[in-house]
């Protein structure tokens, strides 16, 4: 029997994780704001904007994964927001604030509509249903040519405001939106709701008997997550000035899942680390796309077999090992 005074190992890991993580996060934010002032390079700025945009999508997916559901429809939700924002801005001349709100609302509504039905499913069934739903969404994008331009998409999507039309301007804009969204997700996870989510995942019948409204909770989180994905999609097409269905298909949903898994599904920092890793690696390994994908595959196998906590868990284990050896 374990000594009731000693904290279980989990909590030790969490505490160890929080303080250095907070310092690390603040440093990272400062670096993210400062580096363009040194390297005013449009290419790097575009990559930076893409990372910021994908961060919104992957951290919002993390909320869903934290509940124990792996959604393969997330890129489809991005797509819904993307097309709504592009269409309302271009055809109805909405200002960006209004069009991006419509984008978030549209994705959230779709999430709200399908949530109560699909969130009752678990594990593999949820994966399959969301994958098929993502495919249906993509097929709708392809077939509804009057609204989406079909497979050729919508070109000439305008930037949100004139001020952010340049690569530098867009980078800060995307970074700002990204920080707001990620903080929002982090706050949810740290709050009562977050604890309810964790309890629902750990022991659903027990949580339910303690009064946690499981399905309602899941639907709320799922809806919020889809709304955030919609914002991410809108930001993406305003950056590329182009919207097409291929950017929002099963492959992109898979990428978002991989970002979460490789980084670590246990904490939001995992999603962040995984996204930065997956978004920047292609630029470093430019000539070896196939090899890249083989490496991703192998990392996924290793992580799932040995280290479900991903890269973040690896860092923690190393830190624990060095801390332990320092004590001796």
């Amino acid at each position: 029997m374990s000594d009731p005074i000693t904290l279980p190992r989990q909590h030790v890991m969490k505490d160890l994780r929080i303080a250095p993580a907070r310092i690390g996060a603040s440093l990272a934010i400062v670096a993210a704001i400062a580096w363009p002032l040194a390297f005013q390079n449009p290419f790097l700025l575009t990559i930076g904007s893409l990372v910021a945009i994908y961060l919104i999508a992957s951290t919002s997916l993390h909320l869903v994964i934290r509940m124990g559901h792996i959604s393969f429809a997330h890129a489809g939700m991005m797509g819904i927001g993307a097309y709504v924002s592009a269409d309302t801005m271009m055809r109805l001349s909405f200002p960006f604030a209004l069009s991006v709100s419509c984008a978030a609302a549209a994705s959230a509504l779709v999430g709200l509509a399908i949530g109560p039905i699909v969130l009752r499913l678990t594990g593999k069934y949820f994966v399959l249903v969301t994958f098929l739903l993502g495919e249906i969404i993509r097929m709708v994008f392809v077939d509804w040519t009057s609204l989406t331009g079909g497979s050729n998409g919508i070109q000439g999507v305008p930037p949100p405001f004139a001020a952010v039309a340049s690569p530098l301007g867009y980078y800060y804009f995307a970074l700002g939106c990204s920080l707001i969204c990620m903080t929002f997700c982090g706050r949810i996870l740290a709050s009562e709701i977050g604890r309810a989510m964790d309890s629902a995942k750990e022991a659903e019948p027990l949580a339910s008997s303690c009064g946690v409204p499981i399905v309602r909770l899941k639907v709320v989180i799922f809806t919020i997550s889809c709304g955030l994905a919609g914002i991410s999609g809108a930001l993406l097409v305003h950056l590329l000035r182009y919207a097409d269905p291929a950017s929002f298909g099963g492959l992109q949903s898979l990428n978002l899942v991989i970002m979460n898994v490789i980084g670590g599904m246990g904490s939001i920092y995992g999603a962040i680390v995984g996204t930065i890793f997956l978004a920047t690696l292609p630029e470093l390994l430019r000539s070896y796309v196939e090899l890249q994908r083989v490496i991703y595959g192998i990392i996924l196998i290793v992580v799932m077999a040995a280290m479900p906590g991903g890269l973040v868990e690896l860092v923690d284990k190393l830190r624990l090992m060095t801390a332990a050896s320092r004590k001796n």
Partner: protein
Amino acid sequence: MIRLFRPLLLAIAVSTVSAGLACAQEELKIGAIGPLSGGGTAWGLATQRGVQLAIDEVIASGGLKVGNKAYAPKLIMYDDQYSATGGRTAAERLTSVDGVKYIIGPVGSPSVLAAVPVTTAAKVILMSDGYAPGILKNEAGSPFNFRMVDSNVEFAPAMIAWLKKNKPEVKKVAIIAPNDAVGQAAIPALAKAYKDSGIEVWTEMYERGTKEFTPLLTRMIATDVDLFDLNSNAPGEAGLLLKQARQAGFDKQIWQVGGPSVDEIINIAGPLAEGFISYDLFDFSKADAQNFIKAYHAKWDGTINAQTPIWYTAAKILFHAIETAGTTDVETVRDAMLKIEGWNTGFYGPLVWGGLAEYGVNHQLLQNFWITQVKDGKPNTLAIITPEKR
């Protein structure tokens, strides 16, 4: 793994040789974008190799003569993975990190449409390929981008005119196409060209990735068409469509206004491909093509993708424009590209620009194309056609 090494060794060998030849020549970066991984690799390699062959020729003849300097062009190509994000980031990298002034490629409308805003703003010449009219016809007026391959707006009317003359009995045609970017862009133009010639059109679209067409073909046969057009289908699907159509009992003429996919179709359908007629970009049995084929096989093996001579020619046109302009300045070179109309490009005859009526700007290269027919398992030229200048 050997496959990775050989091109590497060859690249080292070639660059040493060309470095030797180019030692008196200053370097001029030529950018390129294309799919070098995934399903579109054949076209990306066609761009890379075609342009490289043109570069080798120029260096061997003493370099690009601009004013009183000699330049050795150097190819910098990035993979766009046949996607919009890929095209955008590749264009960004080429223009702002590598500082190129001229980009050849991409292939595929999503990639081109995403790259064009970047290259137009950076005032970089873009010479691309893709079926979407928006590539040339857009708000910016395409000041710096040119389309180097006929889209079916250019070649379909000419082919159908040939059809009317040679097979007047055709009254109804069936078109089965994928609902991807190429299919959705190509079908309206194609259907219109048929209808303008008085031929009735039956269309059906399918999801990209389908391999089983027998139900759709059964549906097609029940509508009593005289002609089956494989239009913009990818080579693999075109081959399967033809094979399964014949196996389903369709015995009328099958042809393809698009592609080309002649080699793949012969490979997949075997003897069933007999009599198949197709749009083709090049006749590899021509006398003047043999040097090109030799130069290609000196560096790489395998079948030569039919787009390779097109990109080779595109690079040659760019080089001639730079030499005519006497400077590497982008706006002067762009004007020179239009001025050299009538210049003999070699494989494709005189250079002709068109597209003013369709797109509002004369930046569409009007290229000669071939109509070939499969006889005894081999392609045979039936006609060489020049698209109408409009």
